């Protein structure tokens, strides 16, 4: 027997006994029941407060974005939204529990999949992205891989704009570094980390390049090519001049076996060119170029991979070569376009007087 909203009319003793609360008696939670002497008790009992035992998680939920969700978005979440029917709650270590690590993504997806229905709660639709990520794939093999709660926490989930949130941009390296310690160490004193710590808006952290939920394998062509564009969102001129070079043209065609930003500049250990630690500092440039061009010479590395043909001061030879080529193309095409059009008109509309001179 179930009610119209699907809840069972009676508590099933076997299911309750198997739940983590199976050892408790009814009145441990239903305090108002203790004072009832006339059974059957009233249809509606007072709402149970989980906080009477679980004060810390409950306080976290109250502070969290889930605790303050506007009524328009479905109203604040209750414990049961994630933990399941109150009389059947299982510990998170139980594979059947909706809060078990392997079930979490699916549980969160109930609100975060972008699906809409009558009375559905809606959060940012990120579940689908996560499902295709390397984190989700890794979760199928090892529970060391992160589920939603590893990055966002479970009860005290805060918006990323909240400075206390683990996914607030300046906090992201620490969050990712929980597992990716070496990458965090390498990123640690890069120029990007420096800007991030200085509160520079748009300074890159892990998710800027790796994305937050989609998280593709860095070995994939798709990700490597997208990363180039990502660098270009801040480094616009560098991307534009890169696209003028063979490296940039080949990657623009979708092929990756040539230098991309990180191949020369490193991915995590990005430093200013003037910094001796930079892979493209004068001290390290030859070594870096030799990764792909093993017999590169000091002359070879004087090639400017980000050449701007309009920058006369930096590369006068290129500037004047471009000027010469423009002039050459223009003069040849203008001259011969006129020559050709006149010739066409003469042959097309004019009666031929060919042969007149040798008649």
């Amino acid at each position, binding site marked *: 027997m179930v009610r119209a909203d699907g809840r069972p009319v009676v508590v099933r003793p076997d299911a309750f006994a198997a739940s983590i609360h199976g050892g408790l008696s009814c009145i441990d939670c239903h305090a108002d029941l203790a004072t009832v002497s006339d059974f059957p008790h009233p249809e509606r009992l007072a709402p149970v407060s989980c906080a009477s035992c679980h004060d810390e998680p409950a306080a976290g939920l109250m502070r969290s974005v889930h605790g303050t969700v506007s009524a328009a978005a479905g109203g604040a979440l209750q414990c049961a939204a994630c933990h399941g029917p109150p009389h059947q709650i299982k510990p998170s270590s139980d594979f059947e529990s909706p809060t078990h690590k392997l079930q979490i993504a699916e549980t969160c997806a109930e609100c975060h999949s972008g699906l809409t229905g009558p009375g559905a709660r809606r959060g940012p639709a990120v579940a689908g992205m996560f499902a295709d990520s390397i984190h989700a794939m890794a979760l199928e093999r090892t529970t060391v891989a992160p589920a939603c709660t590893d990055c966002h926490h479970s009860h005290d989930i805060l918006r990323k704009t909240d400075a206390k949130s683990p996914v607030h941009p300046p906090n992201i390296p620490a969050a990712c570094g929980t597992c990716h310690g070496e990458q965090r160490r390498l990123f640690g004193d890069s120029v990007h980390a420096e800007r991030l710590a200085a509160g520079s808006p748009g300074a890159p952290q892990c998710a800027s390049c790796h994305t937050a939920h989609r998280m593709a394998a860095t070995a994939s062509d798709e990700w490597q090519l997208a990363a180039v564009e990502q660098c270009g969102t801040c480094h616009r001129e560098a991307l534009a001049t890169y696209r003028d070079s063979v490296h940039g*043209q080949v990657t623009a*065609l*979708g092929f990756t076996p040539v230098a991309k930003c990180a191949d020369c500049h490193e991915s995590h250990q990005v430093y200013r060119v003037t910094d001796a630690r930079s892979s493209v500092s004068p001290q390290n440039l030859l070594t870096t170029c030799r990764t792909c061009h093993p017999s590169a010479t000091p*002359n*070879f590395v004087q090639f400017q991979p980000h050449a701007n043909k309009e920058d006369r001061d930096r590369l006068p030879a290129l500037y004047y*070569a471009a000027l010469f080529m423009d002039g050459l193309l223009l003069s040849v095409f203008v001259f011969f*376009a006129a020559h050709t059009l006149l010739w066409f008109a003469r042959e097309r509309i004019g009666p031929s007087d060919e042969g007149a001179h040798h008649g």
Partner: protein
Amino acid sequence: MADRRYVRRFGRSERLQHLVLLVTFLGLAATGLPLLFSDAAWARPMAQLLGGFGVTGTLHRIFAASLIAVSLVHVSWIALRVLRGERGVLWGPTSLVPQPRDLVELYRHVRWFLWRGPKPAFDRYTYWEKFDYLAVFWGMVIIGGSGLMLWFPEFFARFLPGWAFNVALLVHGEEALLAVGFIVTIHFFNSHMRPRKFPMDMVMFTGVVPEEEYARERPLEYARLKSKAALEALLAPPPDPRFERRARLGGGVAIAVGLMLFVLIVVASLTR
């Protein structure tokens, strides 16, 4: 028509050289343009169609090596003819070297365009044919030279400064654009598609030209051959119709490919 007389204008070697030039040129253009216009919508599919990064690059280098080879053969062939004492190779009415006469002919030709004079009498090679011919030399030095630099940068960097490679990269693309643009518009029009020649002039493929056409188009050369009684030796039978059909088909394909590449360049330039 059966007894229509033909005059031999190009030998087997010249026609073969032109054929190799044509095939390698279009091959180089087709495999190079996706890189030059890598931001165009057609660039990715075209690069994939041509076999992807490795294959396209290899094809480009095979065409390049073949074109360099045929150019060296051509230069050796000229040098050999000069060394053997053949006259009129480097100067005179039968030479491809530009001479003051060519400026006069250009001037008169333009006057004819403007209805201000009779059509000038041309000799064995006209000024626009000399331009086409010498443009290949210029192009070979510029595109071939910069191409070799980009092919073997580590070798050339032993003695060239780094900026030379920036210049090489720019010049290789720009000069290629000039070459492709010129060939598929100006050369195609002048030699093949202008009203009197449309759709194509077969002489570079068959080697022979009808006698009356020769007399009309190159009256000076024709008159000289006649006066020296050299014409008889150059008379040839009409081209084999089957060969001519095949040549027309091949030439037509080449023109179509060239024009297609031109359309791609225009599309890329307009949408850039």
